[in-house]
């Protein structure tokens, strides 16, 4: 069975690679990132950003989409196309075609990522390695005196501006005379008035009695970049908007400590993206085993939309709702809508966006990306036998 499956996969691969446009497409994939970055990047900074963002979006969006569309037309369940009349089991043809499709996806992704890496070396910059504090401490000014409380590990530590609460972390040893980094946070709106500021926190460096405000830049809705001269001490995060309670965890506060070659991060994203694309491809093939090409493509698109869009379409994250209920002492009424919203929020994503965001922000992608990639690959492989069995049941009338 394995020999026949491999023989069919080899033939399907030769067929795919010998099509007229294969060489042109391969060249375009390799040159896509460098060419687009040079074409649309007016200065070095823009080109550096583009070389990261085109690589990211190509792997995050275009590759799974291409896998879905390609997967819809991969199987040829007609007598005319020859595959179904080969002297092998129908399931072996399914597995062989799926294997060939996976190799084509891998080759395309490698070519595109190779171009992305070249562009990042030529026009981008080295990626930043970050370090996070081990714990967070909460401080509260009460009747002229400070009260301290340690945050619980693995959970959010919250600071309420109305109670003069602040969050504090120790600086890592690796930082020099200039510190730089980011704080990511969650917000709970008390609903007493409209939020006031673009950024709801101020970041200070506190060394004994000396307190220096650091330069900040809002990077996204929930992320703030800070930088400034440092003589040691502690980092203080102070909520500044009276209607927004701010919470964070130690791993969401990060100090930039070194710069490294982007190869490792690019390969990590390639692994995750290929795993997600293969999951899409094999799901489309599973549907295609008993349906038409358009139905299979539609099913793949729905899967992608469900696993990428729907979780972020939930109006508020479940965690923020739970926190608000705890702070305000009131539980929101259970309804099917709330329950559905909770379920949407719990959906596993096609790929965790955070890894791509790390790369976009010119940071090293964490090594645990390979674990996420591995799980998605396993889920994809689990679809293969089901598809082979279903395809065996299909009747070939034409």
């Amino acid at each position, binding site marked *: 069975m394995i*020999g*026949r499956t491999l*023989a*069919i996969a080899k*033939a399907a691969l*030769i*067929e795919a690679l*010998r*099509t007229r446009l294969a060489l042109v497409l391969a060249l375009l994939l390799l040159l896509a990132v460098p060419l687009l970055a040079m074409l649309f990047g007016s200065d070095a900074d823009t080109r550096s950003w583009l070389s990261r963002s085109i690589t990211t979006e190509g792997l995050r969006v275009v590759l799974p989409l291409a896998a879905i569309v390609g997967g819809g037309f991969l199987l040829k369940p007609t*007598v*005319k*196309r*020859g*595959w*179904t*009349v*080969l*002297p*092998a*089991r*129908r399931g072996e043809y399914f597995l062989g075609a799926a294997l060939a499709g996976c190799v084509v996806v891998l080759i395309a992704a490698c070519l595109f990522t190779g171009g992305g890496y070249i562009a990042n070396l030529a026009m981008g910059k080295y990626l930043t390695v970050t370090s996070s504090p081990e714990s967070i401490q909460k401080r509260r000014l009460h009747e002229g005196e400070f009260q301290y409380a340690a945050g619980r590990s693995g959970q959010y530590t919250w600071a309420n501006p109305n109670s003069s609460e602040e969050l504090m972390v120790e600086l890592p040893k690796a930082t020099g005379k200039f510190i730089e980094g980011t704080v990511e946070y969650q917000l709970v709106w008390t609903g007493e008035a409209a939020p006031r500021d673009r950024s709801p926190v101020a970041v200070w460096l506190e060394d004994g009695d000396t307190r220096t405000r650091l330069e900040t830049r809002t990077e996204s809705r929930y992320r703030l970049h800070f930088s400034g001269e440092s003589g040691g001490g502690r980092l203080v995060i102070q909520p500044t908007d009276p209607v927004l309670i701010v919470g964070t965890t130690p791993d969401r506060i990060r100090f930039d400590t070194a710069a490294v070659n982007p190869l490792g991060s690019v390969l990590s994203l390639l692994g995750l993206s290929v795993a997600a694309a293969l999951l899409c491809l094999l799901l489309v093939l599973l549907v295609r085993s008993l349906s038409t090409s358009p139905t299979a493509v539609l099913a793949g698109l729905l899967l992608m939309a469900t696993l990428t869009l729907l979780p972020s379409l939930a109006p508020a994250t479940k965690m923020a709702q739970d926190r608000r209920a705890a702070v305000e002492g009131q539980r929101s009424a259970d309804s099917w809508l709330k329950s559905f919203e909770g379920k949407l929020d719990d959906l596993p994503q096609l790929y965790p966006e955070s890894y791509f965001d790390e790369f976009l922000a010119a940071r090293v992608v964490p090594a645990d990306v390979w674990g996420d990639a591995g799980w998605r690959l396993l889920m994809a492989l689990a679809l293969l036998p089901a598809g082979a069995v279903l395809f*065996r049941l299909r*009747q*070939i*009338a034409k």
Partner: protein
Amino acid sequence: MTAVEISNLSKTFRDFFGRRRVQALDGLSLSLKAGEVFGLLGPNGSGKSTTFKIAVGLLRPSSGSVTIQGARPGTLAARRATGFLPEDSTLLPFLTAIETLKLHGALAGLSRADAARKAGELLERLDLTHAAKRRVKGFSKGMQRRLGIASVLIADPDVFILDEPTSGLDPLGAVQVKELIGELRKQGKAILISSHLLGELENVCDRVAFLNKGKLLNEGTLEDLLREREVHELRVSPPDPEAIKALEALAREKGLDVIRSGSPMRTLEAFYISVLGKQKDDKEGK
């Protein structure tokens, strides 16, 4: 041993809602022994291709059964025992001729060396050696047909199911295929063959069956079906007019009707073969 057994086979195609659309086969029963060539005749839409598709496991019967060398169609044993040549070319366009044959050899369980050796032999036998390394996409229809036959032969199956095997071939190619079928019969292979061109099967089949609208109309040996028992044909050579007149007179004297008397006409196919066959022999210096 019975190579192919078709028993009370029916196939109804239904639409999405399960409503009956077409009754393609209606209670067909046939059997085919080893070393026999069986022709399935009938107009387009009579159910020939549907029978073949069920026999190779592409379709499931609505009722009845088919066995190939005792195995159910679609199983690996049945697929390996069967060499199926569909009506249209089903070759993979970007593979070369030699790659196509090696793929079929590999699927039939041949070793690489055996597959390569048999591929070379078959290409030579079917006059395709010059095109061994050319992609199938650039082949003429006749070349594709010959390669299709070679790909069926490489697995050396016991049962051949050939749907319109001479379709697209020139008369010389068609004769070559008919000779090949004769050789396979001598080797003890069972051959199920279909065509709507009656002349194609006349010199090849041991038995034939006539299908129309999925029903079996008639079945038997060519001898049984075609022999005109109420007339007699006598061929003499050279055509001496005096002698022929005497023979005709004698026949009338004995109370026989002389229906036709004259020099017979060759068929266009026979003439074509004699002309092109001669040209080919001249080129080869025979």
